[in-house]
Each structure stands twice: as structure tokens, then as C-alpha cells.
């Protein structure tokens, strides 16, 4: 029986129990983010729920912060922020990367030179400094973070798409499509793109992780989320509580939530690569 590569990949993924578990955790984070967004979960995260710095108990499983707000609810809202940063920035970056990468790889010549020059330039600026400079110039806040990360993180995918297009366009099926008189755009979108889509999926999960990490650091440094409990802001608050009073729960809550999603995304990305990469 002949199976399509996609079906083969899905079967291989299904066999990988660890990757499936990670996928479940990722799905759980997505659900938490959606429920928090609609207000069904973590309602009243900004309200005072108990005494200041109450240690973890059944009422507040991650305790309360200096104002007496429930840390667990704040971690959930942080989850919403992290997931939306990951999603929105990848949704900005991937189309840009595909667009420039396919143009450069398909047409080569002057178009290629300009695009390669542009992304090489962008890539030579130290990433964190570039992000900090962008968020500062755009005016702090989450919108600036979306734009800064989204419009700078397309370089990796652009490189991959470009080199794949260069390789694919010499293959027989593209020659055949051209001989049948198909237009360039149709060949690029309908014929080549589906053949390199697995690379985009693998990269999506890697970009998601680095976007979450970047947002936490930007918020920690004070140029990211303003007035909202991003994990970065919680870690920044918690740092002083830890040294001053030995209050560890806010730090533990935010960093555990962050650790778990990054770990699961990394493991899942590895499993995806193993399943989808035909070179393996």
C-alpha cells in the first residue's frame, strides 16, 4: 500500500507518545488563552483577593502578590499574553518570509540580490538590541512588541524558503508545469509552495518559542507589556520579593508556566522535524 508522505508523517507522530503529550499541553495552553481572553477564566485577576503575600493554599494555589492579587490568575493571563505574542508575531513573520523568500528564490537576479542584501543587513544587527530599539522607538507596550518581533523574525524562514525554491524550480515537475504554459505565480503558489510546506510548519514552532522568550525579556526590561501581568513583569516583580522577603511563589508560577510551554514546543518541533523531513 502506498501512503502519502503526510499520512506517513502523521503515523510516525502518533507513535511518538512524548510528542503527543507535548501537543496536548500546547492545546491546553491554547484553551487557557482562549478562555482567559473571553473572561471565562481568571476573571478579576487585577482585583485584591486576599492578604498581601499569602503563601500558596487551596484558595490561591500560587499564593498572592504584594497587593494581595491571586498569582495563579495572573499566570493564566500571562499565558494569554505569551500565546498571543507567539501567534500574532508568527502570523506576521511567516507571510513576509514566504513572500520574499519565494520571490528571491524563483526569480533570482536583481530581485534576489536586493532581498538577500535586505535580510542579511537585518540579520547582522544584534537581535535583542534591535528589538529593544524598535520597541522603544515605537513606544513601549504589547503592540510595539508584536510589531518588533513580527517584522524582524522573518529572516530565518525567508532563507529556508529561498534556498528551497532555488532547488525545487529546477525539478521536473516545475519544468513540466512551465511547459504546460502555466504562469509564474501559479507555479509558485500552487506547485512549489505545497512541496516546501513542511519546512514552514517546523519553523513555525521554533519561531513561536523564540517569540515567547523575547516577549518575556522585553517585558522584564520594562519595554513590553504595560500594566498587564506578562510573565516577564511577574518575574521582574518577583525578583525583589525573593531577595527581600523570600517570597518565591510568583517567580515559581511564572517561570514554571513558561518552562513547560517552551519545553513542549521544543520537543514537538524536534518530533515534527523527524516525521516531516524526508531526508531522515
Amino acid at each position, binding site marked *: 500500500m502506498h501512503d502519502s508522505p503526510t499520512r506517513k508523517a502523521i503515523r510516525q507522530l502518533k507513535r511518538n507518545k512524548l510528542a503527543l503529550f507535548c501537543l496536548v499541553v500546547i492545546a491546553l495552553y491554547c484553551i487557557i488563552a482562549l478562555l482567559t481572553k473571553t473572561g471565562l477564566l481568571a476573571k478579576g485577576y487585577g482585583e485584591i483577593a486576599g492578604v498581601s503575600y499569602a503563601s500558596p493554599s487551596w484558595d490561591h494555589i500560587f499564593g498572592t502578590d504584594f497587593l494581595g492579587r491571586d498569582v495563579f490568575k495572573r499566570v493564566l493571563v500571562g499565558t494569554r499574553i505569551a500565546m498571543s505574542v507567539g501567534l500574532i508575531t508568527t502570523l506576521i513573520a511567516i507571510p513576509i518570509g514566504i513572500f520574499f523568500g519565494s520571490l528571491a528564490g524563483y526569480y533570482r537576479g536583481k530581485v534576489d540580490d536586493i532581498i538577500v*542584501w535586505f535580510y542579511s543587513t537585518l540579520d*547582522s544587527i544584534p537581535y535583542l*538590541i534591535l528589538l529593544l530599539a524598535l520597541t522603544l*522607538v515605537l513606544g513601549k507596550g504589547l503592540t510595539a512588541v508584536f510589531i518588533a518581533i513580527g517584522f524582524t523574525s522573518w529572516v530565518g524562514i525567508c532563507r529556508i524558503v529561498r534556498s528551497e525554491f532555488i532547488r525545487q524550480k529546477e525539478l521536473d515537475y516545475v519544468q513540466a508545469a512551465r511547459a504546460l504554459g502555466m504562469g509564474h505565480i501559479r507555479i509558485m503558489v500552487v506547485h512549489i509552495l505545497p512541496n516546501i510546506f513542511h519546512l514552514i510548519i517546523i519553523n513555525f514552532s521554533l519561531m513561536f518559542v523564540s517569540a515567547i522568550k523575547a516577549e518575556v525579556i522585553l517585558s522584564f526590561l520594562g519595554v513590553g507589556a504595560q500594566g498587564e501581568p506578562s510573565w516577564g513583569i511577574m518575574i521582574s516583580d518577583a525578583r525583589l520579593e525573593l531577595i527581600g522577603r523570600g517570597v518565591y511563589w510568583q517567580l515559581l508560577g511564572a517561570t514554571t508556566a513558561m518552562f513547560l510551554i517552551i519545553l513542549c514546543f521544543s520537543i514537538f518541533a524536534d518530533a515534527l522535524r523527524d516525521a516531516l523531513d524526508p531526508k531522515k
Partner: protein
Amino acid sequence: MIRYILRRILYTIPLVLGVTLITFLLFNVVGGNPVYQMLGKHASPEEIQELTHQLGLDKPLLVQYVDYLNDLVHLEFGRSWTTHQKITGMISDGLGPSLSLAIPAFLFAALLSIIISLVAAFYRNRFYDRLLVVLCVIGMSVSILVYIIAGQYYLAYVYDIFPISGYESGWAGIPFLILPALIWVGVALGGDVRFYRTVILNETSRDYVLTARAKGLSEPVVMGRHVLKNALIPIITSLAMALPGLFTGSLLLETFFGIPGLGSLSINAINDADFPVIKAMTVFGSVLYMLGNLLGDLMYSLVDPRVRME
């Protein structure tokens, strides 16, 4: 070879121009007129006009850009808005502290991760290798902030093994540098070991390794003398490319440990919205990065002549 080097150097010129163009657009066009920020809310229109003229911000953008390039060629980055010091001086002051943390940490991290990845490759696909890979993935998933905060809290605050933060120049500064350097190594280890392990394992599946084993060489000799030599090519290239990062310092480590290097300089500039300093650090960091890439490429072409043909 000389033709390759020349071509490679010429190739960096448009990149440097590109970086200057991006920083110029970012800070001088998108960033808006800095005069409002410098003078505060209660400035009179005359004051604003005068300062705008003084800074040359009323000239056409093209003229401003050419002026900016001219300054950069003379290593003139202007003055900081907050301290009013010359930025060139601030950068050269920060280099010492940054390098005194970065160089030992970088060398130690490189050595340690090469050794660990050799061990992992030696035990490939057996228990110790699997364990090391799992530890690497876990280590890479922990935020650098956790390493710093936990390290500082337990090793400096609770157990008092190291000073919490501070800096002194010369040998007296060493105690202050040990903890941040250890944290640097801890953060770098996960990713480095994973990368080096892959590189080494790629080598072990080559024919010459089979020959060496067939000759009856012991596994340590095969790994140490044959595999390592070839695996070191990509490893050293990646290390060369990482060199520029040493000069710009670690933003977070320096701030947490009060080391007055270029990382702290950048973070302070972000906190004060000190545009000229950030602009200077962006250009400085990018040019260094390009030099590192150049160095990496040249080293690679030296050991692998096929690269030159492209």
C-alpha cells in the same frame, strides 16, 4: 584565496551601509523629533527651533544621513542625552568590564561543552547520551532570567559564596566575576552541547571512521584523534562567529551583577530612552557581528577550499 578574501570584504560594504540606513530611518525618521523629549513639556517654540537647528535636524534627510555616515567614518557617535559624555569614550570605557567577564566565560563554556559533547558522542544512543540530550533540552527551555535570579539568590544571597553584585578593575574584581561567568556557562551549555554533539555524530558516520575502526584503533583514539579533528572545523567556525558577542557584553548578566560594561550601557540607555547611545550600540554591535562572520567564513575557506568556488 586573495580574490576570495577581497570579494568577501567587498560584500560587507553594502551590509554596513544597510545597517546605517536602518538605524538612521529608525531613530531619525520613525523616532520623530528628539527635541521634544530632550527639552521636556514646558519648552517654548523658540527653544525647540534653536535646538532643532543646533542638532542639524532641520536639514533635508539625505544631508542628515550623509552627515551621520561622515561621523561614523570618524568613529564619532555623538553625545549621550543623559550623561552628555562622548559615546565613543563611553564605549571604550565599557569594553574592559565586558571583556573581563565574557572572555573567561566564553572559553570555559566552549571547552566544557566540547568535552561533554565528546562524552555524549562516545556513548551515542545509550543511557548517558540520552540523559545528556534530555538535560540539554531542559536546560535550553529554562529562561536565562531563572538562571540569573536563582544563581544570585542561592549562591550569593542565601549561601553567601559569592558577592551579590559589583565590579572592580584588575585582579581585585575576580570574585565579582565568578558567579556571572558560571551562569553564562550554564546558559550556554545546553545549546552548545546539542549542536556539537550533532556535528560530532555526523562525522562518526563517515567512511574514514570505519577505516580507523577496522584498523583496530581504540574508540578513544578514533574519537579524539580522528573525529574531533574534523568536527572541530564547524565548531571553531561557530565560535569565531560568536566572538563579536563578547565585545557587546551580556545585557542581562551585566545589569544584574552591576558590571559597568557595554551590556549595562545599553540597558541604561533603554531605560533613559537615550537614543544616540542605543543607535551607537546598534551600529557597533552590527559591525562587530559582520567582522565575526567574515572571520568565520575566511577560516572555513582556509580549511575547506571548496567554499571559495561559490
